């Protein structure tokens, strides 16, 4: 016996979850298997579609203008522009009120913790009041115990980058946090639960204490930006309390990993999986596969490793969404770059000195390593033929694009996840 489903999605990031949800729309029984926690926890929580062209032009005002012109083999070119729009609409449906940006095709400019601005298509509501296109005067607040965000420096960068408002930064001590390296979850927990903390004014709730610490520094600014630590489960409530206490708009600046907006997005997506009846198996890796006895091009089942015990999982259709080099869906050794589960073909130079270029910010070949799919997202072998008839791939495991340079990671995951999942769901009826 194997554990049986119609569609099996391997990988629990944005692409995998989108694929599973899209497949579930087609009314099959869908399972998602994920090994380690997804790299969503590293993600900013912003949904970029395309911020810069592969040639480096940008920031782009309208990503859709540029999508048509992408080179052959780019994941967006494979699925087509219409699918990108459908995938975004699909995401908007899932995200509901938690995300903004769906009213326009244009990219929004969101300030980052380094004081640059990032072009993005959808952004968490917590960042909405901070958009760089909005001319409100801005106070940025950093904390002594949170060295990842240097508020005065970020404010200076924003002004230097030509933001249409004046920005000022202050560094405060966070009420109730003493550790130099307190975890971001600690800050969020304090605010979520409004725990009492000791202040000069006595023991008061953490939200009130935070507002009281910021208040004296507020001059004529009408909005205040904090690093993204303002609560986890009750982030909306925390922000609303701060807005009321400060009499100013409050927004969050996306931070590097580990990132609370990434975790909130993860929670939102996994709740959607639960609501859609997708079965989730996490904490165990898929290590290999078996093909059908009488059809070598068709995957019969995959094998999940549970600490040495090998457990078969069978489905009719499979989606591979295991991530790229960071998520370890694509791996490298000294002599080769490979996809570890199905050993799908990954095109790369035989000499590893050709995998990179000297200029760190140059056009790095390794950034584009990944699987090359057909227009149905079936990974292609070296001969240009699909590797398997019932395997599709989505997200960063695909090659042909440089998501870091293009700012296209989330958009590609959504679009390819949506297409791969929909197709798998359509074909995956038992």
């Amino acid at each position: 016996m194997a554990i049986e489903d119609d569609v099996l999605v391997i990988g629990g990031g944005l692409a995998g979850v989108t694929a599973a949800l899209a497949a579930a729309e087609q009314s099959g029984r869908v399972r998602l298997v994920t090994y380690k926690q997804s790299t969503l926890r590293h993600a900013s929580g912003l949904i970029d579609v395309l911020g810069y062209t592969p040639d480096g032009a940008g920031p782009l005002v309208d990503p859709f203008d540029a999508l048509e012109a992408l080179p052959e083999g780019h994941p967006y070119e494979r699925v087509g522009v219409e699918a990108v729009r459908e995938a975004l609409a699909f995401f908007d449906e899932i995200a509901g009120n938690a995300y903004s940006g769906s009213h326009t095709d244009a990219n929004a400019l969101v300030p980052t913790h380094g004081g640059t601005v990032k072009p993005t298509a959808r952004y968490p509501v917590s960042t909405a009041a901070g958009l760089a296109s909005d001319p409100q005067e801005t106070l940025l607040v950093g904390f002594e115990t949170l060295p990842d965000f240097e508020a005065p420096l970020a404010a200076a960068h924003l002004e230097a980058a030509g933001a249409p408002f004046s920005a000022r930064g202050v560094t405060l001590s966070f009420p109730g946090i003493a550790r130099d390296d307190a975890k971001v979850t600690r800050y969020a927990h304090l605010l979520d639960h409004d725990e009492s903390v000791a202040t000069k004014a006595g023991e008061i709730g953490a939200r009130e204490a935070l507002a009281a610490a910021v208040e004296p520094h507020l001059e004529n600014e009408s909005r205040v930006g904090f690093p993204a630590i303002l609560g986890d489960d009750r982030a909306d409530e925390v922000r609303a309390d701060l807005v009321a206490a400060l009499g100013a708009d409050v927004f969050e600046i996306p931070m590097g990993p580990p990132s609370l907006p990434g975790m909130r997005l993860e929670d939102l997506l996994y709740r959607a999986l639960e609501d859609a009846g997708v079965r989730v198996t996490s904490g165990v890796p898929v290590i290999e596969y078996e093909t059908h006895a009488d059809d070598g091009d068709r995957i019969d089942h995959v094998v999940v490793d549970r600490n040495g015990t090998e457990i078969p999982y069978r489905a009719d259709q499979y989606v591979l969404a295991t991530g790229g080099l960071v998520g370890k869906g694509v791996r490298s050794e000294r002599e080769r770059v490979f996809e570890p589960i199905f050993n799908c073909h990954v095109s790369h130079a035989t000499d590893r000195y050709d995998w990179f270029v000297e200029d760190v910010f140059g056009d790095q070949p390794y950034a584009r390593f990944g699987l090359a799919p057909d227009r149905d997202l079936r990974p292609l072998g070296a001969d240009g033929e699909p590797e398997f008839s019932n395997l599709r791939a989505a997200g960063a495991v695909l090659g042909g694009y440089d998501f870091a340079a293009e700012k296209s990671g989330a958009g590609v995951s959504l679009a390819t996840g949506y297409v791969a999942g929909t197709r798998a769901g359509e074909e995956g009826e038992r």
Partner: protein
Amino acid sequence: MSDAEQPTDDHVPGDDEFEPIQVFPEAEEMDLRPGADNCYKCSTCDTNCPVAEVDDEFPGPKFQGPEQWRLKRQDDQDIDDSVMKCSNCMRCDSACPSEVPLSQMHNTARGEYVEENMSKFSREYVRNRILSNYRRLAPLASAFPRTANFVMGLSVTKWMGEKTLGITSEREFPEFATETFREWWAKRGGNATSKTRAREARVARDAQVENPDKRIAYFHGCYSNYNTPEVAKALVRVYEHFGYEIMVPDQSCSGTPMFANGMLDDARRAAETNVSELRDALEDGADIVASCSSCSMSLRQEYPELFDFEGTEDVASNTWDAVEYLRVHEDLEAELEGTSVEDEEFAYHAPCHSRNQGLDGQTIEVVDAIDGIEAHDVGDSCSGISGTYGWKEEHYETSMKIGEEMFEHMDDAPAETGLTECPTCSMQMEHGTGYEIKHTLEVLEAALVGTDRGADGRRHQEAG
């Protein structure tokens, strides 16, 4: 374990050609090295640590593992005492995107801390030794269960426990059953009876093509033997229903509480007994099945990480969670389809040690097939008790703060009964909400076998 040996956690699919490079050839002793170099400090583990989330003093898993190992390369550097604040929930393991074997490093560090930095005469050491060796005291208590339950329930006992040992007086000691599972098993006729019943069940199921040697060795663990034999009995009845012959080999504690307290010598002794007994069972053609998620975690992951008795790997790779085994070897869901029980709603909490084994969705999936049962997942928070952790006076408050989210979600769920596979999680669930808590196997038993147990007698009712 050699210094350069590949850590067991680093399961890189497709890397069979791994060639170890001997970096520090002088190191023969196990140390904190394995996998430390894989850590690129993304800190994802820290965001998963339930202790760091509520305790500003705790530096988190990244520090306890890879960072501490680097500090340890200096000769005069002791293990930091904060390692005793780690609750061994092992969540950091599945959090790490880079396959750093964090819990293995924590277990090793804790062992070294207790060995070298903790006085063997300190109250803390004595207390931890007592808590982690619950298995040694339990037989005595269960020989006189009513007396033990009475004495343990006295406020003076609890007061003494807190004052002299640092065991929190906030908790109720779990009651000892008046008949242990093993006593019941022996009285019922042991393996021979099970063999007969399994054969009858196979005939009744008309399973002519099935393997007549369907056999499992049950690792019941301490808690279902001494405290909740109804869980162990449920396993027996469910497995016999499917035609399995059950063996109950001699066994010691799984070692989980010992790892969590840095008592690696005690854990080693227990593991040696278990590995040798279970290895014999494997030779008799049985697979090993456990009903407690921490016991299975221990046999499957911690043993091969920390010990290398003959057969450790075999035991690990042939040990199963009781429900998962049936899902893979039988068509459990088809069997449950169409069964019905009296309407009951459950608030289900997945224990960390189920979560780490990829089993967190399983109970909900399986009980969904039973008519009348509705199980609501109460989310992914840790219960906070983590075995002996929440029993310590100094950790009680932390433990309850961690559990708060679970209590709230249990209260919100439209259910008044809890459901989980971990004995200490169930203590915490009961402590925080006052709900009665059941094990998944008890639900399966009700659906597949019914609750009228005939010759086996009704569920034991505690007199005291």
